[in-house]
């Protein structure tokens, strides 16, 4: 008997199916099989100038900061998640974030960085470190919805927008790594928006708390945006457009 169309599943059946390792294995296999550290091993290494390399190292170091925040955040959120499929999804996200940290660190080594940890520490943007500290504080306090909002809406939406822009004009190897990371990020942003959307529908009293948090974290996120865009040499209009993409995600949840 042919399988029914995916769109005919009930919302519960759909979520049960996609928030699973079974789904995750099938999804990542499609775009990661045969890759080494997230990239096609056959891709040639492009020659880049010293200033370009310096800029790329700077950007990748800060991607590592963001991914470390996301890794610790996703792992920490598991204990707060309200049910099994949500915990399972966050476990898959934790694996994704660890992979991102690994592939960006490996790319830094390929670019000649010997001590990745020290270099990341030296080049970290203070705004990103502040964001990470705030996220982990929310988790420590057991604030499920605010922590999920910070992690899967604010941080993930920012990363999604920045990686997409960077992938357009990156060198071949970095661009290939970013394309794989972007595919993971789609799941994370959708998950965050959906879980929070449902929770807000059930409990609108959460809204002022999330609005307040957004006000606090927006400036950190937007400062990181601008910094990265500047290093990538993107025109100001691009930076504004990316900011808009991020704001649209937040607006869909009713935080215009």
């Amino acid at each position: 008997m042919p399988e029914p169309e995916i769109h005919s599943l009930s919302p519960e059946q759909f979520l049960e199916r996609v928030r699973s390792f079974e789904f995750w294995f099938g999804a990542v296999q499609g775009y990661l099989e045969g890759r080494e550290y997230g990239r096609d091993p056959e891709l040639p290494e492009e020659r880049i100038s010293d200033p370009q390399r310096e800029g790329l190292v700077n950007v990748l170091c800060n991607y590592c900061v963001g991914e470390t925040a996301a890794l610790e955040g996703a792992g920490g959120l598991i204990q707060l998640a309200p049910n099994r499929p949500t915990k399972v999804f966050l476990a898959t996200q934790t694996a994704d974030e660890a992979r991102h940290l690994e592939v960006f660190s490996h790319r830094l080594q390929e670019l000649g960085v010997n001590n990745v940890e020290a270099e990341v520490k030296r080049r970290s943007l203070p705004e990103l470190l502040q964001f990470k500290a705030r996220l982990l504080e929310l988790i420590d306090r057991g604030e499920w919805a605010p922590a999920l909002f910070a992690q899967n809406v604010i941080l993930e939406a920012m990363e999604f927008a920045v990686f997409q822009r960077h992938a357009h004009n990156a060198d071949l190897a970095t661009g290939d790594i970013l394309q794989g990371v972007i595919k993971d990020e789609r799941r994370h942003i959708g998950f965050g928006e959906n879980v929070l959307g449902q929770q807000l529908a059930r409990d609108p009293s959460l809204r002022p708390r999330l609005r307040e948090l957004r006000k606090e974290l927006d400036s950190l996120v937007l400062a990181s945006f601008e910094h990265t865009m500047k290093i990538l040499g993107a025109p100001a209009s691009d930076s504004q457009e990316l900011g808009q993409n991020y704001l649209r995600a937040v607006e869909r949840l009713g935080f215009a």
Partner: protein
Amino acid sequence: MSLPAQEKERPRQRFELDDRGFDEVPRRYRKYYRRFLGAGDVLAPNEVLCPVCKVVIRSVRELREGDRVYCMACMTRLRVVKVDGRLEGRVEY
């Protein structure tokens, strides 16, 4: 959701879905999705764009206002709505 009487009566077109190389979901679901090719990409009557992750969602039948579809790439449930005569997906929580 009310539809114009003519549209209600007209049988929906059916579509044979093919794999367009969308590799972000397990193989058996790939035919339901494809990449959006940008501003010039005209969607077919069985397609709608996911506003969350910008992937094109496909169905075996012509889509109409009020239909429910899922974006597996970002795990979102959408309701098909008509805006300025065009079909769009609106996120449902």
